[in-house]
């Protein structure tokens, strides 16, 4: 086992354990913190794949923004007395667990049925990522400029929608004079 493989197994184990804890934790705050650990583990997996840009973007966007959003939402929607008494998973979670295991088995079978899946991913040459090329193809009309622009419109719509939904309306007073 090369050191790289040992490192990978460690990172994968931490990520999986954190994911399971995130999904089954009783208190929502702990679930969110376990989710943050999972997201950091996934960022490290991206780094081992030599997708350095996306490793950093994962930390910046997911951990730095989305996880904080989730934390805020949890803090704003809690009823402190009843939280720790109720179970975190609904009734019938055994069937759901069996379904998830079934899906996992199907996916793993599909992966192992493909002979090329066993190729060993070696280290790429240094500048294989070529961020400049990514930037150019995002702005190229024959490339991916349209999805990029559409996603920016989507973000504007989300911004406006989220503000409209979440803002507290002051109660109207009386009638007009």
């Amino acid at each position: 086992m090369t050191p790289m493989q040992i490192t990978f197994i460690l990172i994968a184990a931490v990520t999986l354990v954190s994911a399971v804890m995130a999904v089954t934790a009783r208190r929502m705050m702990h679930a969110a913190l376990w989710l943050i650990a999972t997201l950091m583990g996934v960022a490290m997996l991206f780094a081992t794949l030599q997708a350095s840009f996306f490793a950093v973007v994962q930390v910046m966007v997911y951990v730095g923004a989305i996880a904080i959003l989730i934390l805020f939402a949890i803090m704003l929607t809690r009823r402190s007395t009843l939280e720790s008494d109720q179970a975190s998973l609904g009734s019938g979670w055994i069937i759901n667990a069996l379904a998830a295991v079934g899906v996992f088995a199907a996916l793993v079978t599909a992966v192992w049925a493909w002979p090329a899946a066993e190729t060993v991913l070696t280290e790429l040459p240094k500048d294989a990522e070529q961020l400049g090329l990514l930037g150019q193809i995002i702005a190229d009309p024959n490339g991916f400029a349209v999805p990029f622009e559409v996603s920016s419109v989507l973000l504007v719509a989300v911004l406006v929608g989220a503000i409209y939904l979440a803002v507290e309306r002051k109660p109207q007073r009386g009638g007009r004079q």
Partner: protein
Amino acid sequence: MIDFLRDPIAFLTQWLNTTLLGWGLSEQAAQITGFAIGAFVAATGAMMFVTILIWAERKLIGRIQDRYGPNRVGPFGIFQSIADLVKIFIKEHIDPVGMDWLPFNLAPVLSVAAVLTMWVAIPFAATVYGVDFNVGLLYLVAVGGLGELAVIMAGWGSNNKYALLGAFRAVAMFISYEVPMVITLLIPVMLTGSLSMNDIVRQQDVWFIVVSPLAALIFFISQVAEVGRSPFDLTEAESELVSGFNVEYSGLKFGMFYVADFLHAFTISLLFSALFLGGWRGPGAEEIPILGFIYFAIKSSLVYFLVILMRGSLPRFRVDHMMDFNWKLLTPLSLVLVVLTALALKLMTGLSLWVQIPVLLVLNGLVFLMAQRMVTGFFRRRRPREVGDRSRPVAHYTPPQSDSEAQG
């Protein structure tokens, strides 16, 4: 010996490597051990360095406020930080009732870790740097954002309404000021063509603060807000929300927050000098790396002095002023600046450097003047014009003109 003086870090690394290989370790293990020792030394050195930073700040703030700083404990009070360290070590750790154990204890650790991880990607000299990421700048922004998590965890784990409110306000401020910071970081990236910190420092034949001073100013202000330093220190002020998210911390845990604050302030001065003041560049810095280190230290000390000066002389912002300042001034300004700089750079590709830099300088000056006119016009319009008449004279000084006017 001259080799050691010229480039001590490379010399020591070489010596360590040969020693470890001589003991029979494999090459990879020797490299990993070297990295581990280097990381340990850098982290410990940074934390020890904070004592000097705290001492310098207290003396300077004292002088700004027309008093001596600490001057009892040792000559010029240089052992004051050590006395404070001993006091903080021996204080009792108090656990508030109903606290959440894991976030409460993890928050100070995460706070310091987020700052120390930033030291990995900053180039201290031509050959002295942790790792040369090809996305180094983005890495620094991302890791700086991890400190906000520590604030939320501290506020939540304290089981204290006021700590939670303070944490909310602090995080709102931090995530708001990330926006102009990241947008203005695009300007050094555009001027260099790469996100790597080493490339940015090497590209600065002309310092970027000369090429784009407005971007440097916006970046500096956003970074001071990111640290949570005065005038943006409503999160930790005693008169606001009883010192915010770290109200329930005592002893070494509070000491860790304190260390993280000062270390972060120094780290942003390192970052600012690396990005805009040319980093380790100076006469003779490429051949003699230790000179580069000295230049870098001088530049970042000057910027740190500026940060301390801001703390000592400016009053604190109110929270709505702070948000207005960010969203209504800094963000549109930085967006306009980035768009115009990109346009100008694209139109001027291929022209010589002597043409590009003055054009960008003039562009920055024009944007700044326009912004300043708009802001003062906005404030002037809001203040109602005062017109005085005989029954309610306006209190302006009017020099006495003649006897008949004065008696009338």
